[in-house]
Protein backbone atom coordinates (compact mmCIF):
# COMPACT_ATOMS: atom_id res chain seq x y z
CA UNK A 1 0.00 0.00 0.00
CA UNK A 2 1.45 3.35 -1.05
CA UNK A 3 1.44 6.45 1.10
CA UNK A 4 0.32 9.62 -0.67
CA UNK A 5 1.64 12.71 1.10
CA UNK A 6 0.14 16.13 0.40
CA UNK A 7 3.10 18.48 0.19
CA UNK A 8 2.11 21.04 -2.40
CA UNK A 9 0.68 23.82 -0.31
CA UNK A 10 1.83 27.38 -0.13
CA UNK A 11 4.94 28.54 1.72
CA UNK A 12 5.47 28.16 5.38
CA UNK A 13 5.58 31.15 7.66
CA UNK A 14 7.02 28.99 10.43
CA UNK A 15 10.59 30.13 10.06
CA UNK A 16 12.21 33.45 9.34
CA UNK A 17 14.17 32.21 6.37
CA UNK A 18 14.31 34.85 3.69
CA UNK A 19 13.45 32.24 1.15
CA UNK A 20 10.19 30.60 2.16
CA UNK A 21 10.20 26.84 2.38
CA UNK A 22 7.40 24.50 1.44
CA UNK A 23 5.88 23.60 4.80
CA UNK A 24 6.84 19.90 4.70
CA UNK A 25 10.47 20.97 4.21
CA UNK A 26 10.65 22.95 7.44
CA UNK A 27 13.16 21.28 9.75
CA UNK A 28 12.60 19.77 13.15
CA UNK A 29 15.85 18.51 14.68
CA UNK A 30 17.67 19.16 11.42
CA UNK A 31 15.31 17.04 9.29
CA UNK A 32 12.29 18.11 7.22
CA UNK A 33 8.82 17.40 8.63
CA UNK A 34 8.32 15.29 5.51
CA UNK A 35 11.23 13.06 6.58
CA UNK A 36 9.66 12.61 10.03
CA UNK A 37 6.37 11.54 8.47
CA UNK A 38 8.08 9.09 6.13
CA UNK A 39 10.26 7.63 8.89
CA UNK A 40 7.09 6.96 10.86
CA UNK A 41 5.34 5.18 8.00
CA UNK A 42 8.51 3.23 7.17
CA UNK A 43 8.71 2.07 10.79
CA UNK A 44 5.19 0.70 10.33
CA UNK A 45 6.18 -1.15 7.16
CA UNK A 46 5.09 1.34 4.46
CA UNK A 47 8.07 2.35 2.33
CA UNK A 48 6.56 3.47 -0.95
CA UNK A 49 5.61 7.10 -1.13
CA UNK A 50 3.96 9.40 -3.62
CA UNK A 51 4.58 13.06 -2.83
CA UNK A 52 2.02 15.51 -4.20
CA UNK A 53 4.27 18.52 -4.63
CA UNK A 54 3.57 21.99 -5.99
CA UNK A 55 5.13 25.04 -4.37
CA UNK A 56 8.93 24.75 -4.74
CA UNK A 57 8.76 21.19 -5.99
CA UNK A 58 12.40 21.51 -7.09
CA UNK A 59 13.44 21.73 -3.48
CA UNK A 60 11.65 18.48 -2.66
CA UNK A 61 13.12 16.75 -5.72
CA UNK A 62 16.61 17.99 -4.83
CA UNK A 63 16.18 16.67 -1.32
CA UNK A 64 15.47 13.14 -2.50
CA UNK A 65 17.94 13.28 -5.36
CA UNK A 66 20.72 14.13 -2.93
CA UNK A 67 19.27 12.13 -0.04
CA UNK A 68 22.30 9.88 0.31
CA UNK A 69 24.52 12.94 0.47
CA UNK A 70 22.54 14.39 3.35
CA UNK A 71 22.37 11.07 5.21
CA UNK A 72 25.92 9.81 4.78
CA UNK A 73 29.40 11.12 5.29
CA UNK A 74 31.01 11.83 1.92
CA UNK A 75 34.41 12.66 0.49
CA UNK A 76 34.52 14.98 -2.51
CA UNK A 77 37.74 14.78 -4.50
CA UNK A 78 37.97 18.05 -6.41
CA UNK A 79 40.90 16.85 -8.51
CA UNK A 80 38.85 14.13 -10.14
CA UNK A 81 35.37 15.45 -9.28
CA UNK A 82 34.34 12.16 -7.69
CA UNK A 83 32.21 11.59 -4.62
CA UNK A 84 32.81 8.69 -2.28
CA UNK A 85 30.08 7.72 0.17
CA UNK A 86 31.01 6.44 3.62
CA UNK A 87 28.70 4.51 5.91
CA UNK A 88 25.78 4.66 3.53
CA UNK A 89 22.84 5.16 5.85
CA UNK A 90 20.17 5.79 3.25
CA UNK A 91 16.65 4.35 3.44
CA UNK A 92 15.01 1.50 1.53
CA UNK A 93 12.24 3.82 0.38
CA UNK A 94 10.78 4.37 -3.04
CA UNK A 95 9.72 7.97 -3.45
CA UNK A 96 7.76 9.38 -6.39
CA UNK A 97 7.57 13.17 -6.51
CA UNK A 98 4.69 14.42 -8.65
CA UNK A 99 4.02 17.99 -9.78
CA UNK A 100 0.38 18.53 -8.83
CA UNK A 101 0.38 22.24 -9.59
CA UNK A 102 0.77 25.43 -7.67
CA UNK A 103 -2.86 26.21 -6.93
CA UNK A 104 -4.52 22.80 -6.83
CA UNK A 105 -6.71 21.95 -3.86
CA UNK A 106 -6.10 18.70 -2.01
CA UNK A 107 -8.67 16.51 -3.79
CA UNK A 108 -7.28 17.51 -7.16
CA UNK A 109 -3.74 16.77 -6.03
CA UNK A 110 -4.74 13.27 -4.94
CA UNK A 111 -6.60 12.62 -8.19
CA UNK A 112 -3.50 13.64 -10.18
CA UNK A 113 -1.35 10.90 -8.62
CA UNK A 114 -3.80 8.03 -9.11
CA UNK A 115 -1.64 6.53 -11.83
CA UNK A 116 1.25 6.18 -9.41
CA UNK A 117 -0.73 4.10 -6.93
CA UNK A 118 -1.11 0.36 -7.10
CA UNK A 119 -3.11 -2.33 -5.36
CA UNK A 120 -6.64 -1.93 -4.00
CA UNK A 121 -6.11 0.90 -1.58
CA UNK A 122 -3.74 3.64 -0.48
CA UNK A 123 -3.00 5.88 2.46
CA UNK A 124 -3.44 9.64 2.08
CA UNK A 125 -1.95 12.01 4.63
CA UNK A 126 -1.02 15.66 5.12
CA UNK A 127 2.60 16.72 4.90
CA UNK A 128 2.34 19.05 7.86
CA UNK A 129 0.92 16.91 10.66
CA UNK A 130 2.73 14.68 13.12
CA UNK A 131 1.09 11.77 14.94
CA UNK A 132 1.53 8.27 16.28
CA UNK A 133 -1.46 6.80 14.46
CA UNK A 134 -1.25 2.99 14.27
CA UNK A 135 -1.79 2.84 10.52
CA UNK A 136 -1.79 -0.96 10.39
CA UNK A 137 -4.69 -0.96 12.82
CA UNK A 138 -6.45 1.67 10.70
CA UNK A 139 -5.93 -0.55 7.64
CA UNK A 140 -7.38 -3.57 9.45
CA UNK A 141 -10.35 -1.46 10.57
CA UNK A 142 -10.79 -0.20 6.99
CA UNK A 143 -10.81 -3.72 5.54
CA UNK A 144 -13.24 -5.08 8.11
CA UNK A 145 -15.75 -2.24 7.57
CA UNK A 146 -15.66 -2.43 3.78
CA UNK A 147 -16.26 1.25 3.04
CA UNK A 148 -14.61 3.25 0.24
CA UNK A 149 -12.81 5.48 2.69
CA UNK A 150 -11.76 5.58 6.33
CA UNK A 151 -10.95 8.87 7.95
CA UNK A 152 -8.77 8.98 11.05
CA UNK A 153 -10.19 11.21 13.78
CA UNK A 154 -8.28 12.46 16.81
CA UNK A 155 -8.81 14.69 19.78
CA UNK A 156 -8.40 18.39 18.96
CA UNK A 157 -4.94 19.56 19.92
CA UNK A 158 -6.45 21.82 22.56
CA UNK A 159 -5.65 25.30 21.34
CA UNK A 160 -9.22 26.38 21.95
CA UNK A 161 -10.89 25.34 25.15
CA UNK A 162 -14.08 23.46 24.51
CA UNK A 163 -17.13 24.92 26.18
CA UNK A 164 -19.66 22.68 27.90
CA UNK A 165 -23.20 23.84 27.08
CA UNK A 166 -26.56 22.18 26.91
CA UNK A 167 -28.95 22.50 23.97
CA UNK A 168 -30.47 25.70 25.32
CA UNK A 169 -27.06 27.29 25.52
CA UNK A 170 -26.69 27.09 29.28
CA UNK A 171 -23.07 27.01 30.34
CA UNK A 172 -22.43 23.88 32.38
CA UNK A 173 -19.17 24.96 33.95
CA UNK A 174 -15.76 23.39 33.85
CA UNK A 175 -16.07 19.80 32.82
CA UNK A 176 -12.89 17.86 32.45
CA UNK A 177 -14.39 15.17 30.30
CA UNK A 178 -15.75 17.59 27.72
CA UNK A 179 -13.08 16.64 25.19
CA UNK A 180 -14.42 13.09 25.25
CA UNK A 181 -17.10 14.32 22.91
CA UNK A 182 -15.02 16.34 20.44
CA UNK A 183 -13.17 14.86 17.50
CA UNK A 184 -11.31 16.40 14.61
CA UNK A 185 -10.16 15.17 11.21
CA UNK A 186 -6.44 14.34 11.21
CA UNK A 187 -6.19 14.48 7.43
CA UNK A 188 -5.12 10.85 7.33
CA UNK A 189 -7.26 8.52 5.21
CA UNK A 190 -7.26 5.10 3.71
CA UNK A 191 -8.93 5.11 0.30
CA UNK A 192 -10.11 2.29 -1.91
CA UNK A 193 -8.97 2.62 -5.49
CA UNK A 194 -12.59 3.16 -6.57
CA UNK A 195 -12.86 6.18 -4.27
CA UNK A 196 -10.71 8.04 -6.78
CA UNK A 197 -13.85 8.22 -8.97
CA UNK A 198 -15.25 10.79 -6.57
CA UNK A 199 -12.23 13.05 -6.83
CA UNK A 200 -13.32 15.50 -9.50
CA UNK A 201 -12.71 19.19 -9.91
CA UNK A 202 -10.47 21.51 -7.98
CA UNK A 203 -11.82 21.07 -4.46
CA UNK A 204 -10.31 20.23 -1.12
CA UNK A 205 -10.88 16.71 0.15
CA UNK A 206 -13.15 17.99 2.92
CA UNK A 207 -15.49 20.23 0.95
CA UNK A 208 -16.51 17.90 -1.81
CA UNK A 209 -14.99 14.44 -1.76
CA UNK A 210 -15.97 13.61 1.82
CA UNK A 211 -19.47 15.05 1.31
CA UNK A 212 -20.05 12.76 -1.63
CA UNK A 213 -18.93 9.75 0.33
CA UNK A 214 -21.18 10.75 3.23
CA UNK A 215 -24.18 10.86 0.86
CA UNK A 216 -23.40 7.30 -0.18
CA UNK A 217 -22.61 6.14 3.35
CA UNK A 218 -19.20 5.12 2.10
CA UNK A 219 -17.02 6.75 4.72
CA UNK A 220 -16.03 5.35 8.04
CA UNK A 221 -14.07 6.88 10.90
CA UNK A 222 -11.28 5.46 12.97
CA UNK A 223 -10.85 7.08 16.36
CA UNK A 224 -7.20 7.63 17.27
CA UNK A 225 -6.79 8.30 20.99
CA UNK A 226 -3.06 8.94 20.79
CA UNK A 227 -0.98 11.89 19.71
CA UNK A 228 -1.79 14.09 16.74
CA UNK A 229 -0.77 17.66 15.97
CA UNK A 230 -0.70 19.87 12.93
CA UNK A 231 2.42 22.02 12.50
CA UNK A 232 0.57 25.11 11.40
CA UNK A 233 1.58 27.92 13.66
CA UNK A 234 4.87 28.99 15.22
CA UNK A 235 3.46 27.78 18.50
CA UNK A 236 2.88 24.26 17.08
CA UNK A 237 6.33 24.38 15.54
CA UNK A 238 8.04 25.30 18.80
CA UNK A 239 6.10 22.63 20.69
CA UNK A 240 7.17 19.96 18.20
CA UNK A 241 10.77 21.14 18.32
CA UNK A 242 10.73 21.03 22.11
CA UNK A 243 9.30 17.52 22.11
CA UNK A 244 11.94 16.38 19.65
CA UNK A 245 14.81 18.05 21.49
CA UNK A 246 13.63 16.54 24.78
CA UNK A 247 13.70 13.09 23.18
CA UNK A 248 9.96 12.83 23.78
CA UNK A 249 8.57 13.05 20.25
CA UNK A 250 5.53 10.71 20.24
CA UNK A 251 5.69 10.32 16.45
CA UNK A 252 9.22 8.88 16.62
CA UNK A 253 8.21 5.25 16.26
CA UNK A 254 11.55 4.27 14.76
CA UNK A 255 14.83 3.27 16.38
CA UNK A 256 18.00 5.28 15.84
CA UNK A 257 19.89 3.69 12.92
Amino acid at each position, binding site marked *: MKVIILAGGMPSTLT*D*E*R*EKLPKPMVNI*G*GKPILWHIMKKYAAQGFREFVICAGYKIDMIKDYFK*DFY*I*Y*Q*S*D*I*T*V*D*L*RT*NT*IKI*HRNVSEDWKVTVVDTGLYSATAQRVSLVEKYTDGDSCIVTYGDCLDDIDIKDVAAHHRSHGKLATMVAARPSGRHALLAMDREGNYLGMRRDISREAWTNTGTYILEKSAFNFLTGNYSLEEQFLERLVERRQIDTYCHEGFWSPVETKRDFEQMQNLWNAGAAPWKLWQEG
Partner: protein
Amino acid sequence: MKVVILAGGLGSRLSEETVDRPKPMVEIGGRPILWHIMKIYSHYGFQEFIICCGYKGHMIKEYFTHYHMYQTNTTFDLSDGGHTDHNSATEPWQVTLANTGLSTLTAGRILRIREYIGGDEEFMLTYGDGVGDVDIEALLAFHRAHGRIATITTTRPEGRFGAIKIGEHGRVESFKEKARKDQSWVNAGFMVFNRKVFDYLGDGSMMLEDEPFEKLAKAGEMMAFCHEGFWSPMDNLHDREYLEGLWEKGQAFWKLWAE
Protein backbone atom coordinates in the same frame (compact mmCIF):
# COMPACT_ATOMS: atom_id res chain seq x y z
CA MET B 1 48.26 15.23 6.97
CA LYS B 2 44.56 15.88 7.42
CA VAL B 3 43.05 19.15 8.46
CA VAL B 4 39.89 18.94 10.54
CA ILE B 5 37.62 21.99 10.50
CA LEU B 6 34.87 22.47 13.06
CA ALA B 7 31.86 23.70 11.13
CA GLY B 8 28.86 22.37 13.00
CA GLY B 9 28.00 25.07 15.49
CA LEU B 10 24.99 27.31 15.48
CA GLY B 11 26.81 30.63 15.20
CA SER B 12 24.11 32.47 17.06
CA ARG B 13 26.05 35.70 17.48
CA LEU B 14 25.98 36.24 13.75
CA SER B 15 22.27 35.68 13.61
CA GLU B 16 21.45 38.10 10.81
CA GLU B 17 23.78 36.17 8.51
CA THR B 18 23.26 32.67 9.84
CA VAL B 19 19.48 32.42 9.64
CA ASP B 20 20.00 31.14 6.12
CA ARG B 21 23.39 29.47 6.43
CA PRO B 22 25.80 27.97 8.91
CA LYS B 23 28.53 30.32 10.08
CA PRO B 24 31.39 28.75 8.05
CA MET B 25 29.31 29.46 4.93
CA VAL B 26 29.05 33.19 5.64
CA GLU B 27 30.88 34.86 2.80
CA ILE B 28 33.84 37.17 2.53
CA GLY B 29 34.42 38.47 -0.99
CA GLY B 30 31.79 36.11 -2.34
CA ARG B 31 33.40 32.97 -0.86
CA PRO B 32 32.53 31.19 2.38
CA ILE B 33 34.98 31.83 5.22
CA LEU B 34 35.47 28.04 5.23
CA TRP B 35 36.95 28.32 1.73
CA HIS B 36 39.34 31.05 2.91
CA ILE B 37 40.53 28.83 5.77
CA MET B 38 41.08 25.91 3.40
CA LYS B 39 43.03 28.13 1.02
CA ILE B 40 45.39 29.06 3.87
CA TYR B 41 46.14 25.38 4.56
CA SER B 42 46.27 24.58 0.87
CA HIS B 43 48.93 27.27 0.43
CA TYR B 44 51.17 25.27 2.77
CA GLY B 45 50.48 22.03 0.92
CA PHE B 46 47.71 20.56 3.07
CA GLN B 47 44.99 19.36 0.71
CA GLU B 48 43.02 16.80 2.71
CA PHE B 49 40.19 18.19 4.78
CA ILE B 50 37.62 16.73 7.14
CA ILE B 51 34.72 19.07 7.78
CA CYS B 52 32.67 18.38 10.92
CA CYS B 53 29.16 19.35 9.80
CA GLY B 54 26.15 19.98 11.99
CA TYR B 55 23.79 22.95 11.82
CA LYS B 56 22.66 23.29 8.17
CA GLY B 57 25.42 20.85 7.21
CA HIS B 58 23.58 20.06 3.97
CA MET B 59 24.58 23.50 2.67
CA ILE B 60 28.26 22.71 3.18
CA LYS B 61 27.81 19.35 1.45
CA GLU B 62 26.03 21.00 -1.47
CA TYR B 63 28.77 23.59 -1.75
CA PHE B 64 31.42 20.94 -2.25
CA THR B 65 29.40 18.53 -4.38
CA HIS B 66 28.67 21.46 -6.72
CA TYR B 67 32.07 23.12 -6.38
CA HIS B 68 33.64 21.49 -9.40
CA MET B 69 30.71 22.31 -11.66
CA TYR B 70 30.46 25.89 -10.44
CA GLN B 71 34.17 26.54 -10.97
CA THR B 72 34.39 25.16 -14.49
CA ASN B 73 32.69 25.65 -17.84
CA THR B 74 29.99 23.08 -18.24
CA THR B 75 28.02 21.55 -21.09
CA PHE B 76 24.69 19.98 -20.20
CA ASP B 77 23.25 17.30 -22.41
CA LEU B 78 19.55 17.49 -21.66
CA SER B 79 18.74 14.50 -23.84
CA ASP B 80 20.39 12.09 -21.42
CA GLY B 81 20.69 14.21 -18.28
CA GLY B 82 24.47 14.14 -18.37
CA HIS B 83 26.92 16.98 -18.12
CA THR B 84 30.58 17.57 -18.92
CA ASP B 85 32.85 19.94 -17.04
CA HIS B 86 35.50 21.29 -19.40
CA ASN B 87 38.58 22.68 -17.70
CA SER B 88 39.01 20.21 -14.92
CA ALA B 89 41.37 22.02 -12.56
CA THR B 90 39.68 23.53 -9.53
CA GLU B 91 41.41 22.85 -6.23
CA PRO B 92 43.62 19.86 -5.43
CA TRP B 93 41.42 19.18 -2.40
CA GLN B 94 39.95 16.03 -1.00
CA VAL B 95 37.11 17.10 1.27
CA THR B 96 35.38 14.70 3.65
CA LEU B 97 32.06 16.00 4.98
CA ALA B 98 30.97 14.21 8.12
CA ASN B 99 27.64 14.52 9.91
CA THR B 100 28.64 15.16 13.49
CA GLY B 101 25.23 16.01 14.87
CA LEU B 102 23.20 19.11 15.46
CA SER B 103 24.07 19.89 19.06
CA THR B 104 27.16 17.75 19.61
CA LEU B 105 29.89 19.51 21.58
CA THR B 106 33.32 19.98 19.99
CA ALA B 107 35.02 17.00 21.68
CA GLY B 108 32.21 14.76 20.44
CA ARG B 109 32.54 16.10 16.90
CA ILE B 110 36.24 15.18 16.86
CA LEU B 111 35.50 11.68 18.17
CA ARG B 112 32.99 11.20 15.37
CA ILE B 113 35.57 11.88 12.63
CA ARG B 114 38.23 9.65 14.17
CA GLU B 115 37.75 6.98 11.50
CA TYR B 116 38.60 9.52 8.77
CA ILE B 117 41.96 10.34 10.39
CA GLY B 118 42.83 6.75 9.57
CA GLY B 119 46.20 5.58 10.84
CA ASP B 120 47.79 9.04 10.79
CA GLU B 121 49.89 9.91 13.83
CA GLU B 122 49.07 13.62 13.65
CA PHE B 123 46.28 15.87 12.43
CA MET B 124 45.49 19.56 12.35
CA LEU B 125 42.35 21.17 13.69
CA THR B 126 40.88 24.64 13.42
CA TYR B 127 37.64 26.54 13.81
CA GLY B 128 35.45 27.31 10.82
CA ASP B 129 35.18 30.98 11.71
CA GLY B 130 38.68 32.40 12.11
CA VAL B 131 41.33 33.51 9.60
CA GLY B 132 44.96 34.49 10.08
CA ASP B 133 48.31 34.62 8.33
CA VAL B 134 49.51 31.73 10.48
CA ASP B 135 52.72 30.09 9.25
CA ILE B 136 51.43 26.53 9.19
CA GLU B 137 54.83 25.17 8.21
CA ALA B 138 56.49 26.78 11.25
CA LEU B 139 53.56 25.63 13.41
CA LEU B 140 54.09 22.02 12.39
CA ALA B 141 57.87 22.29 12.86
CA PHE B 142 57.26 23.69 16.35
CA HIS B 143 54.85 20.87 17.17
CA ARG B 144 57.26 18.19 16.01
CA ALA B 145 60.20 19.78 17.84
CA HIS B 146 58.51 19.78 21.25
CA GLY B 147 56.95 16.35 20.84
CA ARG B 148 53.94 16.95 23.09
CA ILE B 149 50.38 15.88 22.26
CA ALA B 150 48.86 19.28 21.49
CA THR B 151 49.82 22.63 20.04
CA ILE B 152 47.44 25.54 19.89
CA THR B 153 48.11 28.77 18.07
CA THR B 154 47.72 31.72 20.35
CA THR B 155 47.45 35.36 19.47
CA ARG B 156 46.90 38.71 21.07
CA PRO B 157 43.88 40.30 19.46
CA GLU B 158 43.77 43.98 18.61
CA GLY B 159 42.75 45.89 21.71
CA ARG B 160 39.31 47.40 21.58
CA PHE B 161 39.76 49.82 24.47
CA GLY B 162 42.56 52.14 25.45
CA ALA B 163 44.03 51.52 28.90
CA ILE B 164 43.98 54.44 31.33
CA LYS B 165 46.15 54.60 34.41
CA ILE B 166 44.32 56.37 37.23
CA GLY B 167 46.07 57.84 40.26
CA GLU B 168 44.78 59.37 43.47
CA HIS B 169 41.48 61.23 43.46
CA GLY B 170 40.79 59.99 40.00
CA ARG B 171 43.67 61.82 38.31
CA VAL B 172 44.44 60.36 34.92
CA GLU B 173 48.15 59.64 34.86
CA SER B 174 48.57 58.10 31.47
CA PHE B 175 46.45 57.25 28.49
CA LYS B 176 47.50 54.38 26.31
CA GLU B 177 45.83 53.73 23.00
CA LYS B 178 44.72 50.13 22.39
CA ALA B 179 48.11 48.46 22.76
CA ARG B 180 48.11 44.94 21.37
CA LYS B 181 51.02 43.74 23.48
CA ASP B 182 49.04 44.47 26.64
CA GLN B 183 46.29 42.07 25.65
CA SER B 184 46.29 38.55 26.96
CA TRP B 185 46.88 35.58 24.69
CA VAL B 186 43.84 33.83 23.26
CA ASN B 187 43.27 30.55 21.44
CA ALA B 188 43.18 31.24 17.69
CA GLY B 189 42.61 27.65 16.56
CA PHE B 190 45.18 26.40 14.03
CA MET B 191 46.02 23.45 16.28
CA VAL B 192 48.13 20.34 15.76
CA PHE B 193 47.45 17.12 17.63
CA ASN B 194 49.06 13.77 18.04
CA ARG B 195 46.41 11.05 17.78
CA LYS B 196 46.90 10.41 21.53
CA VAL B 197 44.53 13.37 21.98
CA PHE B 198 41.63 10.96 21.43
CA ASP B 199 42.40 9.48 24.86
CA TYR B 200 41.57 12.86 26.40
CA LEU B 201 38.15 13.31 24.82
CA GLY B 202 36.20 10.97 27.12
CA ASP B 203 32.76 10.20 25.74
CA GLY B 204 32.74 13.50 23.85
CA SER B 205 30.03 15.15 25.91
CA MET B 206 32.04 18.30 26.52
CA MET B 207 33.73 21.19 24.80
CA LEU B 208 37.26 20.39 23.65
CA GLU B 209 38.37 23.61 25.33
CA ASP B 210 37.08 22.60 28.77
CA GLU B 211 38.05 19.30 30.35
CA PRO B 212 40.26 17.90 27.54
CA PHE B 213 42.38 21.05 27.30
CA GLU B 214 42.60 21.37 31.08
CA LYS B 215 43.80 17.78 31.38
CA LEU B 216 46.32 18.19 28.57
CA ALA B 217 47.66 21.37 30.14
CA LYS B 218 47.90 19.72 33.56
CA ALA B 219 49.80 16.78 32.05
CA GLY B 220 52.22 19.21 30.40
CA GLU B 221 51.09 17.98 26.99
CA MET B 222 49.98 21.28 25.53
CA MET B 223 52.15 23.93 23.95
CA ALA B 224 51.36 27.38 22.58
CA PHE B 225 52.56 28.53 19.18
CA CYS B 226 52.65 32.29 19.59
CA HIS B 227 51.44 33.96 16.45
CA GLU B 228 52.45 37.62 16.27
CA GLY B 229 50.88 38.17 12.89
CA PHE B 230 47.28 38.92 12.06
CA TRP B 231 44.26 36.91 13.14
CA SER B 232 40.57 37.61 13.33
CA PRO B 233 37.54 35.61 14.33
CA MET B 234 34.21 36.23 12.66
CA ASP B 235 32.00 36.33 15.70
CA ASN B 236 29.63 39.10 14.76
CA LEU B 237 28.51 41.35 11.94
CA HIS B 238 31.15 43.91 12.84
CA ASP B 239 33.89 41.29 12.31
CA ARG B 240 32.35 40.22 9.03
CA GLU B 241 32.24 43.77 7.72
CA TYR B 242 35.83 44.35 8.86
CA LEU B 243 37.02 41.23 6.98
CA GLU B 244 34.93 42.05 3.93
CA GLY B 245 36.40 45.57 3.90
CA LEU B 246 39.96 44.23 4.00
CA TRP B 247 39.20 41.84 1.16
CA GLU B 248 37.72 44.59 -0.99
CA LYS B 249 40.76 46.83 -0.45
CA GLY B 250 43.15 44.01 -1.31
CA GLN B 251 44.43 44.01 2.28
CA ALA B 252 43.22 40.57 3.30
CA PHE B 253 46.12 39.53 5.55
CA TRP B 254 45.16 35.84 5.40
CA LYS B 255 45.32 35.76 1.60
CA LEU B 256 48.67 34.05 1.34
CA TRP B 257 47.86 32.48 -1.98
CA ALA B 258 48.20 33.96 -5.47
CA GLU B 259 45.16 34.29 -7.75
